[in-house]
């Protein structure tokens, strides 16, 4: 079963997403897993992950109580002793969401941003600068209390983003620490504030200057590209053995089966929490079994997200609590754009015509919907799992109708014939007479992805293209295949979990293009609205820069253009969009909001509710 609490979430932001896809970050306890399912867990000591009995009584804002369960447990399928803690190193990085604080909270349902660890202290878009400020009272876990989190730590964060070239770094060119708590960014032109605001989503204060400052200084001192590249390489390769953090729980111990954190009483929100420990339990990769055994006396208190087969979902028992929220994400079929066949835009279009995306979504199960017009626009699934056309909100009416829907197999055949391919005895042959083949590399552990790609293979096989799934162990899939661009067809998400098209387009043309061996500057697309028109050069960089700084109708025009280019060039084919399913137990835990409350529509309630006082341990009688 696909597992890992970080399942289905290769997309916090570009850097984190890459690491999540690489199966490395597990801030959700799902370290090591990427997609589909939450890892799940069980405490070694049993009882809902709670063996915090040693500590027992906890004084909280709610008064003195004796929690029934003194340790909240989420899960991982990894061995915690294998984790290192440089979050910019792709190899088994780990940070837990309760161990570090997020910049801001974004409610998907209301579209509302709530500042948390970081405030935009001063926005002067017209002056092309912004001042950011760290939340008061935030301290590192290196003392009692530890050092305060400062503007320098923020500089380390934004500096590291710049070094590795993540999307957020597109927005600024320089930075300066202002006082103890503030950082001023010099913007790269007049940046659109909503776009900038969204770039702060799913970002964490997780770069203490004492650890990351050396990279920032070396980068500042570097005078040549080679030197800058060396710094980046060093940042990517160094490992930090000791965990660090500034969140409400601090690391205390780990074994091969458990990573344990204890309440950090100096955190500004510590008084919202009435239990002592947070455990990340190592559990079986059979998430279905883990999920079903969460109650009545299971060891696991939450699986962050897990897409269950109907047979599992329908077997939930009393004490199981599940809800769902838009993943703003879904699975895609990326191509190696240097491949002899699939480097050809027309061949990619033909493949898209042959693939039955609707059937692929049905194979995924009840929590997925097909992407109506593959173009990088998020919003194909509603909260109740029905199809949605929210994606049209991003483009003009003309732009939406122009986007090709890719459901015309006959056009696909004609495209292949035009490119010199020939169908002989029901099998497509390449111009040299060999069979047209499309092996699709898929991580073997992410089993909830498999039905999607099996359906894709089925569609192509039925059309006469030799397709097959190549299962590769997840630990090597990301580092040796997808991130290395070593595949013909592969599997990944088509968003970075940001809604704004700037970020999805940025993923195709600025982040993942490297993984798809795509050179955006060489892309060609047919004229807008004419899918069968002659291919012509397009200016991706120019359009992206214009999009970043535009608003209103002008912005819609640029999105129209970029969506069209994506829709026609298809370096990856967005297949389906999904909802994430959260699993919790309420036998020992009091989840305050009603299940219909919009508070649940924030990624992820399991990490936000404790900080907000919306999750409490039940007291014993």
């Amino acid at each position, binding site marked *: *079963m696909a597992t890992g609490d970080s399942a289905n979430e290769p997309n916090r932001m570009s850097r984190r997403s890459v690491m999540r896809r690489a199966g490395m970050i597990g801030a959700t306890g799902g370290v090591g897993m990427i997609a589909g399912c939450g890892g799940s867990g069980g405490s070694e000591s049993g009882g809902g992950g709670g063996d915090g009995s040693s500590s027992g009584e906890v004084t909280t804002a709610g008064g003195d109580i004796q929690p029934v369960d003194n340790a909240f447990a989420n899960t991982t399928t990894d061995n915690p002793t294998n984790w290192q803690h440089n979050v910019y190193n792709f190899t088994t990085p780990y940070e837990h969401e309760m161990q570090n604080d997020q910049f801001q909270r974004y409610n998907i349902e209301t579209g509302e941003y709530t500042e948390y660890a970081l405030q935009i202290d001063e926005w002067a878009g017209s002056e092309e600068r912004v001042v950011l400020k760290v939340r008061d009272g935030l301290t590192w876990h290196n003392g009692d209390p530890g050092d305060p989190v400062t503007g320098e730590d923020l500089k380390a964060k934004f500096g590291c983003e710049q070094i590795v070239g993540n999307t957020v770094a597109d927005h600024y060119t320089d930075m300066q620490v202002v006082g103890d708590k503030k950082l001023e960014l010099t913007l790269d032109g007049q940046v659109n504030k909503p776009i900038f605001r969204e770039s702060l989503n799913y970002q964490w204060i997780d770069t203490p200057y004492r650890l990351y400052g050396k990279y920032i200084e070396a980068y500042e001192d570097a005078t040549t590209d080679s030197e800058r590249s060396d710094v980046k390489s060093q940042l990517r390769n160094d490992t930090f053995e000791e965990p660090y953090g500034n969140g409400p729980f601090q690391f205390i111990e780990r074994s091969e089966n458990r990573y344990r954190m204890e309440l950090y009483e100096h955190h500004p929100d510590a008084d919202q929490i009435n239990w002592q420990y947070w455990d990340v339990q190592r559990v079986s990769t*059979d998430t*279905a*079994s883990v999920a*079903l055994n969460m109650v009545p006396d299971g060891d696991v208190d939450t699986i962050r997200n897990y897409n*269950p*087969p*109907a*047979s*599992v979902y*329908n*077997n939930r028992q009393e004490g199981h609590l599940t809800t769902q929220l838009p993943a703003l994400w879904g699975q895609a079929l990326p191509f190696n754009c240097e491949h002899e066949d699939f480097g050809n835009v027309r061949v990619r279009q033909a493949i898209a015509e042959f693939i*039955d995306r609707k*059937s692929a979504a*049905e*194979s995924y*199960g009840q929590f997925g919907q097909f992407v109506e017009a593959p173009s990088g626009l998020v919003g194909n699934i509603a909260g109740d799992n029905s199809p949605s056309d929210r994606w049209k909100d991003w483009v003009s009416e003309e732009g939406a109708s122009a986007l090709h829907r890719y459901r015309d197999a006959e056009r696909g055949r004609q495209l292949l014939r035009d490119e010199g391919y020939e169908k002989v005895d029901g099998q497509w042959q390449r111009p040299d007479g060999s069979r047209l083949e499309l092996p699709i590399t898929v*991580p*073997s*552990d992410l*089993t*909830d992805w*498999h*039905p999607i790609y*099996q*359906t894709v293979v*089925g*569609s192509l096989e*039925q059309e006469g293209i030799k397709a*097959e*799934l*190549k*299962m*590769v*162990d997840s630990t090597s899939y990301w580092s040796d295949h997808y991130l290395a661009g070593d595949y013909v067809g592969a599997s990944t998400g088509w968003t970075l979990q940001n809604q704004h098209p700037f970020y999805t387009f940025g993923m195709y043309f600025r982040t993942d293009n490297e993984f798809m061996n795509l050179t955006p500057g060489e892309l060609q697309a047919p004229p807008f609205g004419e899918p069968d028109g002659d291919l012509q050069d397009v200016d991706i960089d120019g359009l992206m820069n214009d999009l970043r700084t535009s608003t209103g109708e002008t912005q819609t025009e640029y999105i129209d253009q970029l969506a069209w280019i994506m829709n026609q060039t298809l370096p990856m084919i967005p297949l389906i969009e999904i909802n994430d399913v959260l699993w919790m137990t309420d036998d020992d835990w009091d989840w305050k909001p009603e299940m219909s409350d919009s508070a649940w529509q924030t990624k992820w309630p399991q990490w936000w509710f404790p900080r907000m006082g919306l999750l409490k341990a039940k007291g014993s009688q």
Partner: protein
Amino acid sequence: MSDKNTTFNSVGGSGAERDRQPSKADLYRERLDIFVLTPLRVMWSDWRTRTGGLIILAYVFVGVVGVHLIEPAQTGGPRLIGPLQNMQYPLGTNNLGEGLLAKVVHATPPMLKMVVSGAVFSTALATVVGTVSGYKGGYTDTVLTTISDIAMTIPGLPLVILFLVVFEPSNPFFIGVILSINAWAGLARTIRSQVLELRDQSYIEASRIMDVSLHRIIVDDILPNIMPYVLISFVNTGRGVIFGSVALFYIGVLNVPFSNWGIMLNRAYSTGGALYSWSSLYWIITPMAAIVVLSLGLVLFSQGTERLFNPRIRARHAESIEETGPTTGD
């Protein structure tokens, strides 16, 4: 003792028969009787071999003829239909809408190829090495035993994984050989032990005194005694190939481009959650039944074949011997 049925011909029968030189047709008829009909009669006389043989024949039939009668499974059909609910899909469908009957049928040929190639490779190699090593002794034994010991010390699973990663095989015959690449050594050592015991038996001693060739002693005197064990090992190796393919598929090392019962099982378990609902259990039971029944057929067949290698029982069922044997008298 080394005996060929033609030996009976030479010592028995009437004087006229002794004088008559057998024609070519007689020789062919005799060989057909000895090598084909007699074994079939012996097999048919034992219910285990009979049942096992019929099961294996059924699988071969499905693998050869069934694949032409039933279209390959295609995605996009109705999903998760239970067995016998829709006669277009008599065994039901999976989560992709593929008919399970079609999946099972079309997995049969590559599965049989994998099983047979793996079992034949491993058993044949083990039998040759073990028999020659045990019977010849001396330097030959030392060399072959050393090779076997080295092979036994190499961890099987990593070796298989290494071969699979390096060669990325897609041919089922080759995959079968790789999956059983490390199974021969232990079997060879066991066979060697048995042969060491057998070589001092009086009838083998007699064959040696009569200057019977090494080849004939091994084939006629030794192999029949070890064949029951060899055949059981053959079956176990075949089953090991099936189970190995399941495990290696699961960990992502074995990427087979063809249908496979193990893959069906794995998908039913991992993506279908078939273990957690009675209503979808058929999805797991179907490929499991295919594996279990074939395994049972192989085991029954091998158990009964002990009689096949017993010279006395063979003689009793050989018509050519009865017709020409001493009991007819002059």
